[in-house]
């Protein structure tokens, strides 16, 4: 009972922190935009007003993307950590980001686009994530142990890494630069018109995740015990990988690979809420994951007047020491 009250209190605290960081994000840019401008930009938009235009076209999409990417990557990281029973697993452990990177590299550095549209890079990244998601799903049908699956994912990563290196040697300086910038991740390239589709997929992913709560709760006991409790390991594996690919795929497509969030946040959530109940962990990951990326991006936005920091570098700078701190605390 005490634990229940404690967790409710924690949810409340983290929700407050999330709200505060959202407000902080909205007002951390170089140009000061008032609350009423934000309000009008959504409900009473005047395209002549510069501030409203910035709010609508840049700030709000960027904030929304930070919320979705933080929450989505954290949830999928948690899924992978439970599935592989390994706190070092993350959303990219199965090579979903490798797929995106490979296809984006092809698009950028060979001029050979898979889809000649305005946002060819996004479609390439999305297709890459889906293709690699399916490859790993296909493997998961035949592979018996989770460890072998993990190794296959890592090998896919090395393999694509090698191909990308080869592509890089043939590409021009300009192509190389734009690819490198893509790999650094960015929340700024999302457009308002793309938000509905991203949001719908995100909400769909959350809805599907609810069906993983029970199987993952059982899976912490190990594969053998889970089977004996009536769990179909293969179905669960496919469902978990599928939902992770959905989250990681859509986020990587629009933001590039964002490091560390999906690895650090689920570990933080587990040690803060001290539970193995995945329903509670999902809520915790949404709150803390979103907060983590919103704060990171708010700081980046604030520093933009002096320096352009890539989100990838920044999440690692905050995330790595945080994770070390947790590990040290746990070992005590």
């Amino acid at each position: 009972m005490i634990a229940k009250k404690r967790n409710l209190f924690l949810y409340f605290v983290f929700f407050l922190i999330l709200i505060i960081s959202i407000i902080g994000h909205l007002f951390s840019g170089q140009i000061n935009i008032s609350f009423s401008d934000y309000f009008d930009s959504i409900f009473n938009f005047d395209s002549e007003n510069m501030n409203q235009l910035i709010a609508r076209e840049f700030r709000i999409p960027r904030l929304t993307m930070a919320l979705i990417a933080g929450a989505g990557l954290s949830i999928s990281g948690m899924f992978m950590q439970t599935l592989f029973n390994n706190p070092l697993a993350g959303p990219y452990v199965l090579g979903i980001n490798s797929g995106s990177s490979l296809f984006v590299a092809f698009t950028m550095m060979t001029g050979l686009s898979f889809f000649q549209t305005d946002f060819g890079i996004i479609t390439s990244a999305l297709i890459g994530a889906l293709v690699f998601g399916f490859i790993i799903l296909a493997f998961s049908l035949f592979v018996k142990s989770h460890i072998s699956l993990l190794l296959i994912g890592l090998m896919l990563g090395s393999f694509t890494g090698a191909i990308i290196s080869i592509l890089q040697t043939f590409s021009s300086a300009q192509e190389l630069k734009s690819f490198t910038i893509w790999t650094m991740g960015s929340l700024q390239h999302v457009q308002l018109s793309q938000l509905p589709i991203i949001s719908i997929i995100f909400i769909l992913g959350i809805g599907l995740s609810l069906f993983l709560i029970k199987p993952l709760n059982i899976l912490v006991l190990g594969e053998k015990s889970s089977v004996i409790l009536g769990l179909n390991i293969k179905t669960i594996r496919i469902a978990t990988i599928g939902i992770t690919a959905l989250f990681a795929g859509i986020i990587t497509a629009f933001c590039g690979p964002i490091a560390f969030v999906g690895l650090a946040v689920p570990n933080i959530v587990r040690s803060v809420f001290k539970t193995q109940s995945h329903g509670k962990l999902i809520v915790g990951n949404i709150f803390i994951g979103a907060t983590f990326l919103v704060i990171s991006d708010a700081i980046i936005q604030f520093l933009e007047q002096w320096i352009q920091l890539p989100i990838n570098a920044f999440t690692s700078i905050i995330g790595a020491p945080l994770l070390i701190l947790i590990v040290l605390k746990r070992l005590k």
Partner: protein
Amino acid sequence: MITFNKCEIGYKSVLVRIPELNLSAGHIYALIGANGSGKSTLLNTIINKKSLLGGELFIDSKSHATFSAKELAQKIAYVESKFDGVEYLTVEQYISLGRAPYTDAFGRLGEDDIKAISDAITILSLNSFKDKYTLNLSDGERQLVAIARALAQATPIIILDEPTAFLDYGNRIKLIQTLTKIALQENKCIVFSSHDIELCLDSSIQILIVNQQDKNLELCASDITKKEILRIGFGI
């Protein structure tokens, strides 16, 4: 409860043969045999992790092969020789996972589930540490908690793979007494593998030995001596 008919059990070659045997409710059976004699394989066959090489196995006179995973989980509970505990998993949460075969898609606990969980906790007198983390228990406590999880599963059959292997002598005696009590009071069919021949002989446990020579599984008479067990099972 569990009926074997001309069963052949093993991996590529046959390790254990069971021409005919019926294990019934309200009884507890200790499975004894040398290392590598196929005790674990036999238990794995009963829980359907391993299929039979030949013959037929019936649970409640229904063929073993026709059960779905969920149906089987409502018939047989299984306790591994060692439960290591899971970080941040409390005893009560762990025991509640035993209700998985009965709960809905989201794992929500109903009244029946909550009652089964609290009954299991009461039967094993775990009330004082139900809020503890499973990682912070002693080996003996953890084994009791694992048995409580199996009890919460409310199955007529409980299978345990060497449940006493990691316990000290006092805890071994207590565990075997607890299992015997549960078999009688809750009318369950309990089968466990063990090397504690003396402890099993001292209580009202029926002994199954894998005959070392012809690989047949023998149900021993209640007045069997340790000497005979050693001769049949270990060739000493």
